[in-house]
Protein backbone atom coordinates (compact mmCIF):
# COMPACT_ATOMS: atom_id res chain seq x y z
CA UNK A 1 0.00 0.00 0.00
CA UNK A 2 1.23 3.47 -0.90
CA UNK A 3 1.19 5.17 2.51
CA UNK A 4 1.77 8.73 1.29
CA UNK A 5 -1.01 8.45 -1.29
CA UNK A 6 -3.42 7.07 1.30
CA UNK A 7 -2.47 9.70 3.86
CA UNK A 8 -3.24 12.52 1.39
CA UNK A 9 -6.46 10.75 0.36
CA UNK A 10 -7.46 10.39 4.02
CA UNK A 11 -6.85 14.08 4.72
CA UNK A 12 -8.93 14.91 1.64
CA UNK A 13 -11.80 12.72 2.78
CA UNK A 14 -11.76 14.12 6.32
CA UNK A 15 -11.63 17.70 5.00
CA UNK A 16 -14.55 16.95 2.70
CA UNK A 17 -16.57 15.44 5.56
CA UNK A 18 -15.90 18.38 7.89
CA UNK A 19 -16.89 20.81 5.14
CA UNK A 20 -20.10 18.85 4.61
CA UNK A 21 -21.00 18.96 8.31
CA UNK A 22 -20.26 22.66 8.65
CA UNK A 23 -21.93 23.58 5.33
CA UNK A 24 -25.22 22.02 6.41
CA UNK A 25 -24.88 22.95 10.11
CA UNK A 26 -28.59 23.69 10.36
CA UNK A 27 -29.23 20.02 9.65
CA UNK A 28 -26.23 18.55 11.46
CA UNK A 29 -25.56 20.65 14.57
CA UNK A 30 -28.70 22.58 15.50
CA UNK A 31 -31.30 19.75 15.77
CA UNK A 32 -29.38 17.66 18.36
CA UNK A 33 -28.73 20.81 20.40
CA UNK A 34 -32.45 21.63 20.48
CA UNK A 35 -33.48 18.03 21.23
CA UNK A 36 -31.02 17.70 24.08
CA UNK A 37 -32.04 21.06 25.56
CA UNK A 38 -35.63 19.75 25.64
CA UNK A 39 -34.44 16.54 27.33
CA UNK A 40 -32.65 18.57 29.99
CA UNK A 41 -35.67 20.81 30.58
CA UNK A 42 -38.32 18.07 30.62
CA UNK A 43 -36.58 14.99 32.02
CA UNK A 44 -33.87 16.67 34.04
CA UNK A 45 -35.53 19.77 35.37
CA UNK A 46 -39.29 19.19 35.49
CA UNK A 47 -39.53 15.43 36.06
CA UNK A 48 -36.06 15.06 37.61
CA UNK A 49 -36.96 17.28 40.58
CA UNK A 50 -39.70 14.82 41.56
CA UNK A 51 -37.40 11.80 41.09
CA UNK A 52 -34.76 13.13 43.47
CA UNK A 53 -31.40 11.31 43.36
CA UNK A 54 -30.05 8.33 41.38
CA UNK A 55 -26.99 6.45 42.72
CA UNK A 56 -26.43 9.43 45.03
CA UNK A 57 -26.47 12.10 42.26
CA UNK A 58 -29.10 14.67 41.26
CA UNK A 59 -31.21 13.14 38.51
CA UNK A 60 -30.17 15.91 36.12
CA UNK A 61 -26.51 15.23 36.91
CA UNK A 62 -27.05 11.49 36.53
CA UNK A 63 -28.65 11.64 33.06
CA UNK A 64 -26.32 14.32 31.63
CA UNK A 65 -23.47 11.88 30.64
CA UNK A 66 -26.01 9.51 29.10
CA UNK A 67 -27.62 12.30 27.08
CA UNK A 68 -24.21 13.49 25.86
CA UNK A 69 -23.32 9.93 24.84
CA UNK A 70 -26.72 9.50 23.18
CA UNK A 71 -26.17 12.59 21.02
CA UNK A 72 -22.64 11.46 20.13
CA UNK A 73 -23.83 7.98 19.11
CA UNK A 74 -26.78 9.10 17.00
CA UNK A 75 -24.82 11.84 15.24
CA UNK A 76 -21.81 9.66 14.47
CA UNK A 77 -24.13 7.05 13.03
CA UNK A 78 -26.28 9.55 11.14
CA UNK A 79 -23.32 11.37 9.64
CA UNK A 80 -21.75 8.31 8.04
CA UNK A 81 -25.10 6.91 6.90
CA UNK A 82 -26.12 10.13 5.17
CA UNK A 83 -22.69 10.87 3.72
CA UNK A 84 -21.93 7.39 2.38
CA UNK A 85 -25.45 6.61 1.20
CA UNK A 86 -25.70 10.09 -0.34
CA UNK A 87 -22.48 9.33 -2.26
CA UNK A 88 -23.95 6.02 -3.42
CA UNK A 89 -27.25 7.59 -4.37
CA UNK A 90 -25.59 10.47 -6.26
CA UNK A 91 -23.04 8.04 -7.74
CA UNK A 92 -20.11 10.22 -6.65
CA UNK A 93 -18.91 7.26 -4.62
CA UNK A 94 -17.41 6.30 -8.00
CA UNK A 95 -14.92 9.15 -7.55
CA UNK A 96 -13.45 7.14 -4.67
CA UNK A 97 -13.87 3.70 -6.20
CA UNK A 98 -11.93 4.49 -9.37
CA UNK A 99 -9.07 6.05 -7.39
CA UNK A 100 -6.10 4.09 -6.05
CA UNK A 101 -6.90 4.89 -2.40
CA UNK A 102 -7.45 1.75 -0.35
CA UNK A 103 -10.81 0.61 0.98
CA UNK A 104 -9.40 0.94 4.51
CA UNK A 105 -8.77 4.64 3.81
CA UNK A 106 -12.34 5.07 2.56
CA UNK A 107 -13.61 3.52 5.81
CA UNK A 108 -11.30 5.49 8.10
CA UNK A 109 -12.10 8.76 6.30
CA UNK A 110 -15.84 8.34 6.66
CA UNK A 111 -15.56 7.11 10.24
CA UNK A 112 -13.34 10.08 11.10
CA UNK A 113 -16.02 12.38 9.69
CA UNK A 114 -18.65 10.65 11.82
CA UNK A 115 -16.49 10.87 14.95
CA UNK A 116 -15.78 14.56 14.30
CA UNK A 117 -19.47 15.35 14.07
CA UNK A 118 -20.23 13.19 17.11
CA UNK A 119 -17.61 14.99 19.16
CA UNK A 120 -18.71 18.41 17.91
CA UNK A 121 -22.32 17.72 18.89
CA UNK A 122 -21.16 16.07 22.15
CA UNK A 123 -19.19 19.21 23.06
CA UNK A 124 -22.19 21.40 22.29
CA UNK A 125 -24.54 19.21 24.36
CA UNK A 126 -21.98 19.23 27.22
CA UNK A 127 -22.04 23.03 27.20
CA UNK A 128 -25.84 22.99 27.26
CA UNK A 129 -25.72 20.49 30.15
CA UNK A 130 -23.48 22.87 32.10
CA UNK A 131 -26.32 25.39 31.94
CA UNK A 132 -28.51 22.95 33.87
CA UNK A 133 -26.16 21.05 36.18
CA UNK A 134 -22.62 20.74 37.49
CA UNK A 135 -20.33 18.27 35.68
CA UNK A 136 -16.86 17.56 37.07
CA UNK A 137 -14.90 15.12 34.97
CA UNK A 138 -13.51 12.55 37.42
CA UNK A 139 -11.48 10.54 34.88
CA UNK A 140 -10.72 12.67 31.79
CA UNK A 141 -8.85 9.93 29.92
CA UNK A 142 -11.66 7.41 30.35
CA UNK A 143 -14.23 10.04 29.37
CA UNK A 144 -12.40 11.02 26.19
CA UNK A 145 -11.34 7.52 25.12
CA UNK A 146 -14.81 6.07 25.70
CA UNK A 147 -16.58 8.81 23.76
CA UNK A 148 -14.17 8.41 20.82
CA UNK A 149 -14.42 4.60 20.85
CA UNK A 150 -18.23 4.63 21.13
CA UNK A 151 -18.46 7.18 18.36
CA UNK A 152 -16.21 4.96 16.20
CA UNK A 153 -18.41 1.92 16.83
CA UNK A 154 -21.52 3.72 15.65
CA UNK A 155 -19.82 5.44 12.74
CA UNK A 156 -18.76 1.97 11.55
CA UNK A 157 -22.27 0.64 12.13
CA UNK A 158 -23.63 3.55 10.08
CA UNK A 159 -21.21 2.72 7.28
CA UNK A 160 -22.36 -0.92 7.19
CA UNK A 161 -25.99 0.25 7.16
CA UNK A 162 -25.30 2.52 4.20
CA UNK A 163 -23.36 -0.20 2.33
CA UNK A 164 -26.45 -2.40 2.39
CA UNK A 165 -28.99 0.40 1.93
CA UNK A 166 -30.63 0.57 -1.50
CA UNK A 167 -33.13 3.34 -0.80
CA UNK A 168 -33.63 6.13 1.72
CA UNK A 169 -36.07 4.01 3.76
CA UNK A 170 -33.24 1.54 4.43
CA UNK A 171 -31.16 4.14 6.24
CA UNK A 172 -34.04 5.00 8.59
CA UNK A 173 -34.86 1.43 9.66
CA UNK A 174 -31.83 0.73 11.87
CA UNK A 175 -31.90 4.09 13.72
CA UNK A 176 -35.65 3.79 14.32
CA UNK A 177 -35.99 0.14 15.21
CA UNK A 178 -32.58 -0.70 16.68
CA UNK A 179 -30.54 2.33 17.66
CA UNK A 180 -33.22 4.35 19.46
CA UNK A 181 -34.62 1.45 21.56
CA UNK A 182 -31.10 0.28 22.50
CA UNK A 183 -30.14 3.83 23.50
CA UNK A 184 -33.25 4.36 25.63
CA UNK A 185 -32.77 0.94 27.25
CA UNK A 186 -29.02 1.48 27.64
CA UNK A 187 -29.13 3.13 31.04
CA UNK A 188 -29.28 6.74 29.86
CA UNK A 189 -32.21 7.59 32.16
CA UNK A 190 -31.86 5.00 34.90
CA UNK A 191 -29.51 2.69 36.73
CA UNK A 192 -30.05 -0.96 35.79
CA UNK A 193 -29.98 -1.75 39.52
CA UNK A 194 -33.60 -0.48 39.49
CA UNK A 195 -34.61 -3.30 37.13
CA UNK A 196 -35.74 -6.82 38.16
CA UNK A 197 -32.91 -9.40 38.01
CA UNK A 198 -34.09 -10.87 34.70
CA UNK A 199 -34.16 -7.49 32.92
CA UNK A 200 -30.80 -6.59 34.42
CA UNK A 201 -29.36 -9.66 32.67
CA UNK A 202 -31.12 -8.77 29.43
CA UNK A 203 -29.73 -5.24 29.64
CA UNK A 204 -26.19 -6.64 29.78
CA UNK A 205 -26.61 -7.76 26.14
CA UNK A 206 -27.01 -4.12 25.11
CA UNK A 207 -23.63 -2.67 24.05
CA UNK A 208 -24.84 0.90 24.60
CA UNK A 209 -25.19 0.13 28.33
CA UNK A 210 -21.41 -0.36 28.54
CA UNK A 211 -20.66 2.82 26.63
CA UNK A 212 -23.04 4.98 28.67
CA UNK A 213 -21.86 3.55 31.97
CA UNK A 214 -18.16 3.83 31.18
CA UNK A 215 -18.69 7.42 30.03
CA UNK A 216 -20.71 8.17 33.17
CA UNK A 217 -17.90 6.66 35.22
CA UNK A 218 -15.45 9.00 33.49
CA UNK A 219 -17.55 12.04 34.43
CA UNK A 220 -19.24 11.14 37.73
CA UNK A 221 -17.16 8.20 38.92
CA UNK A 222 -20.13 5.79 39.15
CA UNK A 223 -21.05 2.82 36.95
CA UNK A 224 -23.35 -0.21 36.92
CA UNK A 225 -20.77 -2.38 35.17
CA UNK A 226 -17.03 -3.14 35.13
CA UNK A 227 -15.07 -0.47 33.21
CA UNK A 228 -12.48 -2.99 31.98
CA UNK A 229 -15.30 -5.13 30.62
CA UNK A 230 -16.80 -2.05 28.91
CA UNK A 231 -13.48 -1.31 27.20
CA UNK A 232 -13.15 -4.92 26.08
CA UNK A 233 -16.63 -4.91 24.57
CA UNK A 234 -16.21 -1.56 22.81
CA UNK A 235 -12.77 -2.41 21.39
CA UNK A 236 -14.07 -5.77 20.16
CA UNK A 237 -16.94 -3.97 18.45
CA UNK A 238 -14.54 -1.55 16.76
CA UNK A 239 -12.34 -4.39 15.47
CA UNK A 240 -15.31 -6.53 14.45
CA UNK A 241 -17.22 -3.78 12.64
CA UNK A 242 -14.09 -2.47 10.90
CA UNK A 243 -13.29 -5.99 9.66
CA UNK A 244 -16.86 -6.47 8.41
CA UNK A 245 -16.80 -3.06 6.64
CA UNK A 246 -13.48 -3.84 4.98
CA UNK A 247 -14.64 -7.28 3.85
CA UNK A 248 -17.82 -5.78 2.40
CA UNK A 249 -15.98 -3.05 0.49
CA UNK A 250 -13.33 -5.50 -0.76
CA UNK A 251 -16.08 -7.74 -2.11
CA UNK A 252 -17.85 -4.73 -3.56
CA UNK A 253 -21.10 -5.45 -1.71
CA UNK A 254 -23.58 -2.64 -2.31
CA UNK A 255 -21.09 -0.50 -4.20
CA UNK A 256 -20.02 -2.49 -7.26
CA UNK A 257 -22.33 -4.22 -9.69
Amino acid at each position, binding site marked *: *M*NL*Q*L*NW*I*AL*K*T*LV*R*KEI*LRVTRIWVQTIVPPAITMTLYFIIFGNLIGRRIGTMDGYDYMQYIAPGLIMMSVITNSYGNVVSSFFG*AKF*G*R*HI*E*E*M*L*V*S*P*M*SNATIIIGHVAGGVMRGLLVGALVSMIALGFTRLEVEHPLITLSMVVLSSTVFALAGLINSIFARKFDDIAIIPTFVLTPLTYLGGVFYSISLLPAFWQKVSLANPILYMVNAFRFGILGTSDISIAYAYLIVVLFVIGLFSVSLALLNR*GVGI*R*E
Partner: protein
Amino acid sequence: MYALTIRNLTKTYPNGVQALKGIDLVVKAGDFYALLGPNGAGKTTAIGIICSLVNKTAGQVEIFGHSIDDDLATAKSFIGLVPQELNMNLFDSVHNIVLNQAGYYGIARPQALQRAEKYLSELRLWDRRKDVARALSGGMKRRLMIARALIHEPRLLILDEPTAGVDIEIRRSMWKYLKRINEEGTTIILTTHYLEEAESLCRHVAIIDEGSIIEDAPMGEVLRKLQREVFVLSLRDSVTKAPRLDGFETLLRDDGDVEVAIDSRQSLNILFDALNNKDITVLSMRNKANRLEELFMGLVENKQHSPASARPPG
Protein backbone atom coordinates in the same frame (compact mmCIF):
# COMPACT_ATOMS: atom_id res chain seq x y z
CA MET B 1 3.85 -1.20 -24.78
CA TYR B 2 0.14 -1.78 -24.34
CA ALA B 3 -2.03 0.66 -22.41
CA LEU B 4 -4.75 -1.94 -22.01
CA THR B 5 -4.81 -5.68 -22.43
CA ILE B 6 -8.03 -7.62 -21.96
CA ARG B 7 -8.10 -11.41 -22.20
CA ASN B 8 -11.23 -13.56 -22.19
CA LEU B 9 -13.18 -11.03 -20.15
CA THR B 10 -16.54 -12.35 -19.06
CA LYS B 11 -19.31 -10.78 -17.06
CA THR B 12 -22.52 -12.47 -16.04
CA TYR B 13 -24.85 -10.39 -13.86
CA PRO B 14 -26.72 -12.04 -10.97
CA ASN B 15 -29.94 -11.95 -13.06
CA GLY B 16 -28.24 -14.26 -15.57
CA VAL B 17 -27.59 -11.64 -18.26
CA GLN B 18 -24.22 -12.33 -19.89
CA ALA B 19 -22.98 -8.83 -20.69
CA LEU B 20 -19.51 -9.91 -21.86
CA LYS B 21 -18.80 -13.26 -23.49
CA GLY B 22 -15.05 -13.61 -23.25
CA ILE B 23 -13.79 -10.53 -25.08
CA ASP B 24 -10.15 -9.87 -26.00
CA LEU B 25 -8.85 -6.35 -26.64
CA VAL B 26 -5.44 -4.77 -26.91
CA VAL B 27 -4.94 -0.99 -26.95
CA LYS B 28 -1.49 0.33 -27.80
CA ALA B 29 0.01 3.13 -25.70
CA GLY B 30 -0.69 6.47 -27.38
CA ASP B 31 -3.60 5.15 -29.44
CA PHE B 32 -6.97 6.87 -29.87
CA TYR B 33 -9.29 3.91 -29.73
CA ALA B 34 -13.03 3.75 -30.40
CA LEU B 35 -15.19 1.14 -28.71
CA LEU B 36 -18.51 1.13 -30.50
CA GLY B 37 -21.69 -0.82 -30.11
CA PRO B 38 -25.44 -0.48 -29.76
CA ASN B 39 -27.09 0.13 -26.39
CA GLY B 40 -26.65 -2.87 -24.10
CA ALA B 41 -23.77 -4.27 -26.16
CA GLY B 42 -21.44 -4.42 -23.14
CA LYS B 43 -19.34 -1.26 -23.60
CA THR B 44 -20.14 0.29 -20.23
CA THR B 45 -19.75 -3.07 -18.47
CA ALA B 46 -16.28 -3.47 -20.00
CA ILE B 47 -15.31 0.04 -18.92
CA GLY B 48 -16.78 -0.58 -15.47
CA ILE B 49 -14.56 -3.65 -15.05
CA ILE B 50 -11.45 -1.83 -16.30
CA CYS B 51 -12.09 0.97 -13.77
CA SER B 52 -13.12 -1.47 -11.00
CA LEU B 53 -16.70 -0.21 -10.76
CA VAL B 54 -17.99 -3.63 -11.81
CA ASN B 55 -16.75 -7.02 -10.59
CA LYS B 56 -15.72 -9.31 -13.44
CA THR B 57 -16.83 -12.92 -13.65
CA ALA B 58 -13.66 -14.17 -15.36
CA GLY B 59 -10.74 -13.02 -17.47
CA GLN B 60 -7.74 -10.74 -17.12
CA VAL B 61 -7.31 -6.99 -17.41
CA GLU B 62 -3.94 -5.24 -17.42
CA ILE B 63 -3.32 -1.50 -17.47
CA PHE B 64 0.20 -0.68 -18.67
CA GLY B 65 1.23 -4.19 -17.62
CA HIS B 66 -0.34 -4.01 -14.14
CA SER B 67 -3.06 -6.56 -13.50
CA ILE B 68 -6.23 -5.37 -11.76
CA ASP B 69 -6.14 -8.66 -9.82
CA ASP B 70 -2.58 -8.37 -8.49
CA ASP B 71 -1.79 -4.64 -8.47
CA LEU B 72 -5.11 -2.84 -8.51
CA ALA B 73 -3.96 0.44 -6.95
CA THR B 74 -1.17 0.94 -9.51
CA ALA B 75 -3.47 -0.07 -12.37
CA LYS B 76 -6.10 2.42 -11.17
CA SER B 77 -3.57 5.22 -10.83
CA PHE B 78 -3.01 5.13 -14.62
CA ILE B 79 -6.68 5.57 -15.54
CA GLY B 80 -8.87 8.64 -15.80
CA LEU B 81 -12.57 7.98 -16.33
CA VAL B 82 -15.25 10.22 -17.81
CA PRO B 83 -18.38 8.17 -17.26
CA GLN B 84 -21.56 8.18 -19.29
CA GLU B 85 -23.75 9.47 -16.45
CA LEU B 86 -23.08 12.38 -14.14
CA ASN B 87 -21.40 11.08 -10.99
CA MET B 88 -20.41 14.13 -9.03
CA ASN B 89 -21.73 15.80 -5.90
CA LEU B 90 -23.94 18.43 -7.49
CA PHE B 91 -23.99 20.40 -4.25
CA ASP B 92 -20.22 20.71 -4.13
CA SER B 93 -18.27 23.49 -5.83
CA VAL B 94 -16.49 22.95 -9.14
CA HIS B 95 -13.15 23.66 -7.44
CA ASN B 96 -13.76 21.21 -4.61
CA ILE B 97 -14.81 18.45 -6.98
CA VAL B 98 -11.50 18.48 -8.85
CA LEU B 99 -9.43 19.12 -5.71
CA ASN B 100 -11.04 16.17 -3.91
CA GLN B 101 -10.36 13.93 -6.88
CA ALA B 102 -6.72 15.02 -6.86
CA GLY B 103 -6.54 14.17 -3.16
CA TYR B 104 -7.96 10.69 -3.76
CA TYR B 105 -5.07 10.09 -6.15
CA GLY B 106 -2.54 11.23 -3.55
CA ILE B 107 -1.71 14.58 -5.13
CA ALA B 108 -0.55 17.04 -2.47
CA ARG B 109 -2.66 20.14 -1.99
CA PRO B 110 -0.29 22.77 -3.51
CA GLN B 111 0.14 20.70 -6.69
CA ALA B 112 -3.59 19.93 -6.77
CA LEU B 113 -4.37 23.67 -6.66
CA GLN B 114 -2.02 24.31 -9.61
CA ARG B 115 -3.48 21.49 -11.67
CA ALA B 116 -7.05 22.49 -10.83
CA GLU B 117 -6.34 25.95 -12.23
CA LYS B 118 -4.65 24.48 -15.32
CA TYR B 119 -7.40 22.02 -16.25
CA LEU B 120 -10.36 24.18 -15.25
CA SER B 121 -8.88 27.00 -17.34
CA GLU B 122 -8.23 24.74 -20.32
CA LEU B 123 -11.81 23.50 -20.15
CA ARG B 124 -13.14 27.05 -19.67
CA LEU B 125 -14.49 26.46 -16.16
CA TRP B 126 -12.04 28.48 -14.06
CA ASP B 127 -14.42 31.44 -13.83
CA ARG B 128 -17.11 29.10 -12.54
CA ARG B 129 -14.92 27.36 -9.95
CA LYS B 130 -16.85 28.72 -6.95
CA ASP B 131 -20.24 27.68 -8.34
CA VAL B 132 -21.88 24.48 -7.20
CA ALA B 133 -21.93 21.84 -9.92
CA ARG B 134 -25.70 21.82 -10.24
CA ALA B 135 -25.59 25.46 -11.40
CA LEU B 136 -23.60 24.45 -14.50
CA SER B 137 -25.11 23.73 -17.91
CA GLY B 138 -25.06 20.18 -19.29
CA GLY B 139 -22.01 20.89 -21.46
CA MET B 140 -20.15 22.46 -18.54
CA LYS B 141 -20.87 19.43 -16.34
CA ARG B 142 -19.39 17.21 -19.09
CA ARG B 143 -16.31 19.42 -19.25
CA LEU B 144 -16.02 19.32 -15.48
CA MET B 145 -15.97 15.52 -15.61
CA ILE B 146 -13.14 15.71 -18.15
CA ALA B 147 -11.19 18.13 -15.93
CA ARG B 148 -11.77 15.84 -12.95
CA ALA B 149 -10.57 12.81 -14.92
CA LEU B 150 -7.40 14.64 -16.01
CA ILE B 151 -6.45 16.11 -12.63
CA HIS B 152 -4.06 13.23 -11.84
CA GLU B 153 -2.72 13.31 -15.43
CA PRO B 154 -3.62 9.72 -16.31
CA ARG B 155 -1.79 7.79 -19.02
CA LEU B 156 -5.06 6.20 -20.13
CA LEU B 157 -8.21 8.32 -20.44
CA ILE B 158 -11.50 6.47 -20.90
CA LEU B 159 -14.48 8.47 -22.10
CA ASP B 160 -17.86 6.79 -22.10
CA GLU B 161 -20.04 8.85 -24.44
CA PRO B 162 -18.53 12.15 -23.31
CA THR B 163 -20.42 14.31 -25.79
CA ALA B 164 -23.87 12.79 -25.33
CA GLY B 165 -26.45 15.56 -25.19
CA VAL B 166 -24.07 18.47 -25.75
CA ASP B 167 -24.44 20.91 -28.62
CA ILE B 168 -22.30 20.69 -31.74
CA GLU B 169 -20.09 23.66 -30.84
CA ILE B 170 -19.12 22.23 -27.46
CA ARG B 171 -18.75 18.78 -29.01
CA ARG B 172 -16.29 20.07 -31.57
CA SER B 173 -14.30 21.99 -28.95
CA MET B 174 -14.14 18.80 -26.88
CA TRP B 175 -12.86 16.87 -29.91
CA LYS B 176 -10.15 19.45 -30.44
CA TYR B 177 -9.13 19.21 -26.81
CA LEU B 178 -9.11 15.41 -26.81
CA LYS B 179 -7.01 15.37 -30.00
CA ARG B 180 -4.52 17.65 -28.32
CA ILE B 181 -4.10 15.57 -25.16
CA ASN B 182 -3.80 12.43 -27.30
CA GLU B 183 -1.03 14.10 -29.31
CA GLU B 184 0.66 14.95 -26.00
CA GLY B 185 0.83 11.21 -25.23
CA THR B 186 -2.37 10.24 -23.41
CA THR B 187 -3.93 7.02 -24.66
CA ILE B 188 -7.67 7.53 -25.18
CA ILE B 189 -10.48 5.00 -25.34
CA LEU B 190 -13.77 6.47 -26.49
CA THR B 191 -17.24 5.05 -26.67
CA THR B 192 -19.77 7.08 -28.57
CA HIS B 193 -23.02 6.95 -30.43
CA TYR B 194 -21.81 9.70 -32.75
CA LEU B 195 -19.94 7.59 -35.26
CA GLU B 196 -18.71 10.73 -36.96
CA GLU B 197 -16.91 11.42 -33.68
CA ALA B 198 -15.14 8.05 -33.77
CA GLU B 199 -14.29 8.39 -37.46
CA SER B 200 -12.77 11.82 -37.09
CA LEU B 201 -10.88 11.16 -33.83
CA CYS B 202 -9.91 7.52 -33.57
CA ARG B 203 -7.16 5.53 -35.24
CA HIS B 204 -8.42 2.13 -34.17
CA VAL B 205 -11.93 0.79 -33.76
CA ALA B 206 -13.50 -2.18 -32.03
CA ILE B 207 -17.17 -2.96 -32.43
CA ILE B 208 -18.91 -4.86 -29.69
CA ASP B 209 -22.34 -6.41 -29.99
CA GLU B 210 -24.20 -8.64 -27.54
CA GLY B 211 -21.08 -9.04 -25.42
CA SER B 212 -18.73 -10.11 -28.23
CA ILE B 213 -16.20 -8.20 -30.32
CA ILE B 214 -17.31 -8.38 -33.95
CA GLU B 215 -14.65 -6.08 -35.42
CA ASP B 216 -11.28 -4.90 -34.16
CA ALA B 217 -8.94 -3.18 -36.61
CA PRO B 218 -7.33 0.14 -37.57
CA MET B 219 -9.93 2.70 -38.68
CA GLY B 220 -8.64 2.89 -42.25
CA GLU B 221 -8.75 -0.86 -42.65
CA VAL B 222 -12.26 -1.00 -41.28
CA LEU B 223 -13.49 1.74 -43.60
CA ARG B 224 -11.93 -0.03 -46.59
CA LYS B 225 -14.27 -2.93 -45.93
CA LEU B 226 -17.20 -0.78 -46.97
CA GLN B 227 -18.72 -2.37 -50.07
CA ARG B 228 -21.19 0.37 -50.88
CA GLU B 229 -21.59 4.05 -50.29
CA VAL B 230 -24.64 6.23 -50.88
CA PHE B 231 -24.29 9.83 -52.05
CA VAL B 232 -27.00 12.47 -52.12
CA LEU B 233 -26.89 14.76 -55.17
CA SER B 234 -28.55 18.17 -55.33
CA LEU B 235 -29.42 18.89 -58.96
CA ARG B 236 -29.69 22.25 -60.65
CA ASP B 237 -32.87 21.29 -62.50
CA SER B 238 -35.55 19.50 -60.55
CA VAL B 239 -36.61 16.04 -61.74
CA THR B 240 -39.90 14.18 -61.32
CA LYS B 241 -38.34 10.73 -61.19
CA ALA B 242 -34.93 9.35 -60.44
CA PRO B 243 -32.66 9.45 -63.50
CA ARG B 244 -31.57 6.06 -64.84
CA LEU B 245 -27.78 5.87 -64.78
CA ASP B 246 -26.14 2.75 -66.15
CA GLY B 247 -24.43 0.74 -63.43
CA PHE B 248 -25.83 2.76 -60.50
CA GLU B 249 -28.87 2.44 -58.29
CA THR B 250 -30.75 5.74 -58.00
CA LEU B 251 -33.63 6.97 -55.92
CA LEU B 252 -35.60 10.24 -55.88
CA ARG B 253 -35.95 11.66 -52.39
CA ASP B 254 -38.93 13.60 -51.04
CA ASP B 255 -36.84 16.79 -50.94
CA GLY B 256 -36.08 16.50 -54.69
CA ASP B 257 -32.49 15.36 -54.27
CA VAL B 258 -31.29 12.12 -55.81
CA GLU B 259 -29.56 9.27 -53.99
CA VAL B 260 -26.95 7.27 -55.88
CA ALA B 261 -25.48 4.03 -54.51
CA ILE B 262 -21.88 3.37 -55.57
CA ASP B 263 -19.95 0.16 -55.21
CA SER B 264 -16.63 0.79 -53.48
CA ARG B 265 -14.81 -0.59 -56.57
CA GLN B 266 -16.53 1.90 -58.89
CA SER B 267 -14.98 5.21 -59.81
CA LEU B 268 -16.79 8.47 -59.18
CA ASN B 269 -15.62 9.62 -62.62
CA ILE B 270 -17.89 7.03 -64.21
CA LEU B 271 -20.80 8.39 -62.23
CA PHE B 272 -20.11 11.93 -63.41
CA ASP B 273 -19.69 10.70 -67.00
CA ALA B 274 -23.13 9.10 -66.74
CA LEU B 275 -24.58 12.33 -65.34
CA ASN B 276 -22.98 14.42 -68.09
CA ASN B 277 -24.37 12.08 -70.75
CA LYS B 278 -27.84 12.84 -69.40
CA ASP B 279 -27.13 16.60 -69.19
CA ILE B 280 -27.69 16.55 -65.47
CA THR B 281 -25.86 19.29 -63.54
CA VAL B 282 -24.95 18.53 -59.94
CA LEU B 283 -24.82 21.51 -57.57
CA SER B 284 -23.60 19.63 -54.51
CA MET B 285 -22.89 16.13 -53.29
CA ARG B 286 -22.76 14.61 -49.80
CA ASN B 287 -22.65 11.23 -48.04
CA LYS B 288 -26.11 9.97 -47.12
CA ALA B 289 -24.85 8.47 -43.87
CA ASN B 290 -21.63 8.42 -42.02
CA ARG B 291 -19.43 5.73 -43.55
CA LEU B 292 -18.70 4.11 -40.22
CA GLU B 293 -22.40 4.07 -39.45
CA GLU B 294 -23.05 2.07 -42.62
CA LEU B 295 -20.32 -0.37 -41.78
CA PHE B 296 -21.57 -0.67 -38.23
CA MET B 297 -25.12 -1.40 -39.34
CA GLY B 298 -23.83 -3.88 -41.89
CA LEU B 299 -21.78 -5.77 -39.33
CA VAL B 300 -24.60 -5.92 -36.80
CA GLU B 301 -27.10 -7.03 -39.47
CA ASN B 302 -24.72 -9.68 -40.82
CA LYS B 303 -24.29 -11.04 -37.33
CA GLN B 304 -28.02 -11.20 -36.75
CA HIS B 305 -28.57 -13.07 -40.03
CA SER B 306 -25.72 -15.52 -39.63
CA PRO B 307 -26.76 -19.10 -38.65
CA ALA B 308 -24.40 -18.99 -35.63
CA SER B 309 -26.38 -16.21 -34.06
CA ALA B 310 -29.76 -17.89 -34.52
CA ARG B 311 -31.42 -18.22 -31.18
CA PRO B 312 -33.82 -20.92 -30.08
CA PRO B 313 -37.42 -19.73 -29.87
CA GLY B 314 -38.78 -18.67 -26.51
